[in-house]
């Protein structure tokens, strides 16, 4: 198990990582997710040994590795820029960690290239500059695996690839994690990547670890408004608590019609109701439990779904509903109409600030 306790990194008066605790089980695919500048890459580089922590400890299976040099850690980092050695061929890049660790290179390059879906006969003797972005990412992955690490650290390695390739490689990385039974720690600002690949999420913001858990749990039960909005496109309504019995909370708001009573695991009194865009529909009349009167401002067809952009008739707030194309066709809605953005009570998420 990889464990960080009170891990901290300061740059002068700036606290990049603020006393973070995390535990990652062996074989787990853990993702550290957060917006740009949140400290997630700093945290990863401390786990890799490239940055010296200002405080705290890192242990691997109980052994303190806080002061262990990167070349002596059983970890390998796939860099955001991939950091392939430009003067070496693909084969030489992959052989590099095998040679530094004094192992035989016999057949290893071919096996590793096949593992990352590259044809050794075609790619092994190419120069790095001859490869596409996706191929370079795969070579960087193969090179890190060639080090035979216990833990593979990945610093947004898919960030500069096109969307289709990102989705394909996300799937392949998740499969590789299972196939190799190796611990993966992945850093990203992409919610989709985090949700698709991970067993466990660590949400970080401004250096603080603000929620940990399985992706579905964090998606459905975010700790606060920031996480709720970060974890998916959502409409946010300010609410007032009108009743609370310890298990359920009833709220209402001047922005929507009706009160909402839901169970919430959050101890703090909720201040916002969050509802995901794809849990909302827009129809001429209020037919669901909760709804807000809106003017339809814009309609954007996105293939199977339609984004209906609306503005509140009572406040200055804007809302969005992402509805199925068939549903949109079945209701009589057009730009300029007055309608209701609405949703079922159980889709409501109550969160504090």
């Amino acid at each position: 198990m990889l464990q960080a306790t009170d891990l901290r990194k300061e740059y002068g008066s700036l606290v990049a990582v603020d006393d973070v605790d995390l535990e990652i089980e062996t074989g787990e695919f853990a993702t550290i997710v957060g917006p740009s500048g949140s400290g997630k890459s700093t945290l990863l580089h401390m786990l890799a040994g490239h940055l010296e922590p200002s405080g705290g400890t890192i242990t691997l299976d109980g052994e303190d590795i806080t002061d262990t040099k990167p070349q002596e850690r059983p970890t390998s980092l796939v860099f955001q820029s991939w950091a392939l050695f430009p003067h070496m061929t693909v084969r030489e890049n992959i052989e590099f960690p095998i040679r530094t660790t004094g192992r035989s290179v016999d057949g290893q390059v071919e096996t590793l290239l096949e593992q990352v879906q590259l044809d050794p006969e075609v790619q092994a003797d190419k120069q790095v500059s001859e490869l596409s972005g996706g191929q370079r990412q795969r070579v960087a992955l193969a090179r890190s695996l060639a080090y035979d690490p216990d833990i593979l650290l990945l610093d947004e390695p898919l960030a500069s690839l096109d969307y289709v390739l990102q989705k394909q490689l996300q799937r392949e990385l998740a499969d590789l994690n299972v196939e190799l039974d190796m611990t993966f720690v992945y850093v990203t600002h992409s919610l989709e990547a985090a949700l698709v690949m991970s067993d466990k999420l660590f949400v970080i913001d401004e250096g603080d670890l603000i929620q940990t858990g399985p992706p579905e749990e964090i998606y459905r039960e975010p700790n606060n408004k920031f996480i709720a909005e970060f974890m998916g496109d959502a409409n946010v309504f300010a609410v007032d608590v009108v009743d609370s019995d310890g298990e359920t909370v009833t709220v209402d708001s001047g922005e929507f019609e009706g009160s909402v009573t839901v169970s919430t695991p959050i101890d703090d009194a909720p201040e916002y109701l969050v509802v995901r865009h794809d849990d909302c529909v827009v129809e001429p009349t209020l037919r669901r439990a909760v709804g807000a009167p809106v003017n339809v401002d814009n309609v954007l067809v996105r293939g199977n779904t339609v984004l209906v952009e609306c503005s509140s008739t009572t406040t200055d707030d804007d809302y969005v509903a992402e509805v199925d194309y068939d549903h949109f066709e079945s209701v009589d809605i057009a730009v300029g109409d007055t309608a209701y953005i609405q949703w079922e009570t159980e889709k409501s998420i109550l969160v504090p600030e």
Partner: protein
Amino acid sequence: MSALDTLRGRMDAVATSDNPLTALVTPPYVLLLPLAVLLLVMFVGPMVAIVLFSVQPGNAISLNPGTWTVEHYAEILGGMASGEGVYGDVLVNTAAVSAVTTVVTLVLSYPAAYALARKIKRYKTVFLLVLIIPLFTSVNIRVFGWALFLVNNGVLESVVSLFGVSNYPTMMYQRWTIILGTTYVYMPFMLFPIYLSLLSIEDETIAAAQDLGANRWTLFRRIVLPLSKPGVIIGSLFVFILSLGADVEAQILGGGSIFTMASNINYSFGYSQNWPLGSAQAVGLLIITVVCGVIILRTINLKEIASRGDA
């Protein structure tokens, strides 16, 4: 067909033309034209004149068609081959000065360039300025400074005499004194190409190598040295070729007793007034320079270096 289509068709025809002259007047080649013309007039023209003079009889001061001779080449090559006369010594002196200067500047420059490019953060600009400032001064002034420093009854002798040293050796007019001068004068030409090549190595490349188990020696041998090789080669090329043509250093620090090819050419054109002989030596020096340059450049893959930015 509209006028715009006609114009577009003509531009396409020019752009796809196989005629190299047509290609030369299209951007971006047209941007090279002023420099190309200048080089043609100021380099190729004089070079042709030198070559033609080199096959004229001794003491000719104008070109006389029909009096071509290779007597000067025979004299130079014969002297070099037999070791007799001045040419054997000149060749040895020139080769020694160039080779030793290149090696010494490389050995001194690489660690300094490495420290400046990858280790020193504070006062880096100050160090770089200190290294650049001597280039703002004329070579003659700097070399005369060395002469005043080293000469008998000069600054160095005065300083060492304060420590009781009475038998000050003759420092001037030795081969190593010329090497001292060329090393000092040409050091920046070695240091800056190496510095720039070390500076261009991405931090993540270094971190990746460490991450993959490389110790310091492996990191230097497998990553830093190969990636800085272009700087080493270009720096060596600069220093070696500039040292081949070192004239001022040989004249002032050699004092007329140690001749290099460049100072001997100067002597032939000036004191001896034997332009054809001087021209023949100049052609010889040019050939040696080009051959050495090609050999040095062949040790690096320019195409691979040019493509590194894509990696």
